């Protein structure tokens, strides 16, 4: 298939449309405005609906409603906007409604900076809202991967009846790169996906309380509430099989870089530069940041590894806490960090690698 130069945000939106997404509601915020802009133009062409809501809260709740009616639905925002959507996301998780949403993250905390950052890691992976629910969180490091993961996200969401988060930093969202797009689902396929949800979706059928989507905001019977949470916990535990990770030249590495998103691609090029100089450097790149590929850190040869280098655009570091759980004290962990909208420097990563090698 011919490749096409696309901006990350636009590629995410096109991948969603091709996956059968027919409803999008959002509210503007940099650096993700190209996602709603693209949907606004594209969805009417395929019989879908785009709404610019009056706020983030309104938008996420529109998506909640559309997805509860069985339509593949999506929203997106950037860090402070995602925080505003957290209530609706938690409600979707409680009601077991399959939605896909993207966080094209920027500097923080607060309104932060409009430039790229990776400061929403804990929010994305640990607590995207109240109540301790979990989601598959997918973190692309190229525009192609953003396309592939978005396309797959809708299948995961429907399979699990659960929200799925695309966690992309502002670099991946705003940069352009050649992509090959996945096939466009036909109108028949899109209709079949919707029909497959008839058992639970709110599509106007006769009352069937046992199977209907539970879209009430609370459950006052504590025994039932606990049962629902136990079912959810069993679902989350089943995600071990969905873990995606790239392990690059790890086996003999004296330094292993741990990074996701844009920092991971920068890290990968650092591995190549170092290997060309005879330095034994590797990379572990979580693609699913939740669930996290802790076991990949068992593949490091701790007899030769002098240290793991956590590279992320967040100060203080966040990813490092999951890296620590993977390394389990078997070697030192160092960090290479920037924050507040500054983009990771390859030179800085190279220097940090050299500093560990010199030990």
């Amino acid at each position, binding site marked *: 298939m011919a*490749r*096409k*130069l696309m901006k990350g945000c636009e590629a995410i939106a096109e991948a969603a449309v091709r996956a059968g997404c027919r409803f999008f509601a959002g509210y503007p915020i940099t650096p993700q405005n190209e996602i709603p802009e693209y949907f606004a133009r594209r969805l009417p062409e395929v019989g879908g609906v785009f709404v610019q809501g009056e706020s983030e809260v309104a938008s996420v709740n529109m998506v909640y409603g559309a997805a509860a009616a069985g339509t593949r639905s999506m929203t997106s925002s950037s860090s402070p906007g995602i925080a505003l959507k957290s209530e609706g996301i938690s409600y979707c998780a409680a009601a077991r409604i399959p939605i896909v949403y993207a966080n094209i993250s920027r500097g923080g905390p607060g309104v932060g*900076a*409009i*430039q790229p950052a990776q400061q929403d890691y804990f929010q994305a992976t640990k607590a995207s809202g109240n109540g301790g629910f979990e989601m598959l969180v997918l973190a692309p490091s190229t525009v192609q991967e953003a396309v592939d993961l978005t396309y797959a996200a809708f299948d995961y969401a429907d399979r699990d009846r659960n929200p799925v988060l695309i966690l992309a930093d502002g*670099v991946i969202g*705003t*940069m*352009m*790169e*050649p992509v090959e797009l996945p096939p466009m689902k036909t109108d028949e396929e899109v209709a079949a996906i919707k029909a497959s949800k008839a058992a639970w979706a709110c599509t106007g059928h006769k009352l069937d309380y046992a199977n209907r989507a539970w879209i009430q905001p609370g459950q006052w019977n504590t025994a039932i509430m606990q049962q629902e949470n136990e079912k959810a916990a069993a679902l989350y535990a089943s995600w071990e099989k969905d873990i995606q990770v790239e392990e690059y030249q790890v086996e003999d590495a004296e330094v292993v870089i741990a990074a996701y998103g*844009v920092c991971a*691609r*920068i*890290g*990968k*090029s*650092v591995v*190549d530069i170092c290997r060309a100089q005879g330095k034994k450097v590797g990379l572990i790149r979580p693609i699913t940041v939740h669930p996290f590929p802790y076991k990949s850190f068992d593949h490091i040869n701790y007899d030769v590894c002098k240290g793991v280098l956590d590279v992320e655009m967040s100060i203080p570091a966040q990813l490092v806490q999951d890296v620590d759980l993977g390394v389990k004290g078997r070697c030192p962990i160092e960090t290479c960090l920037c924050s507040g*909208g500054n*983009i*990771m*420097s*390859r*030179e800085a990563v190279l220097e940090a690698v050299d500093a560990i090698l010199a030990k």
Partner: protein
Amino acid sequence: METNLCVAGFGGQGVMSLGKFLASATCDATDKNVTFFPSYGAEQRGGTANCFVVISDGYIGAPLGDVMDDLIVMNGPSLTKFLPTLKQGGTLFINSSIVDETKVDRDDVKLVKAPVTELALEMGNAKVLNVIMLGVYVGYTEVIDPAIVWSTIEHKLASKPKLLPLNKQAFEKGLELGRAQR
């Protein structure tokens, strides 16, 4: 082989389009990897604008490099800001209509000059200065076949066919200027 290019100027000088034309042409007609990264911030609206294009035979890690192989500056402030990022032996392309050549305080880089603001005005449309500069860059570096770049511009302007002759003239003029300084 990886080439890191930074294009910088005022908002409105078409620096983003220049970078995108180059990235699109590379995507459409070669099997090389390419990235385009625009840099923008609230303070840059109406101020300076810049973008980064990386073209490589291999994997592209950093879409925004620390050290540039080539630098195109369209205005004075961009020279001050980005000249320190140009590598030793790198090539600096300046819009000599408004960038003061005497402010180039490095003798370890190659200098390519093109008075693109004046040339564009002579052609009757100030907006084509970026296409002239794109021609200069492609003519000088031969980073990609000029015919491919032109067909990309043609494609992008398909909805505005009236602009094609002027852009063709601008691109050819740039190529000529770039080749002459090789």
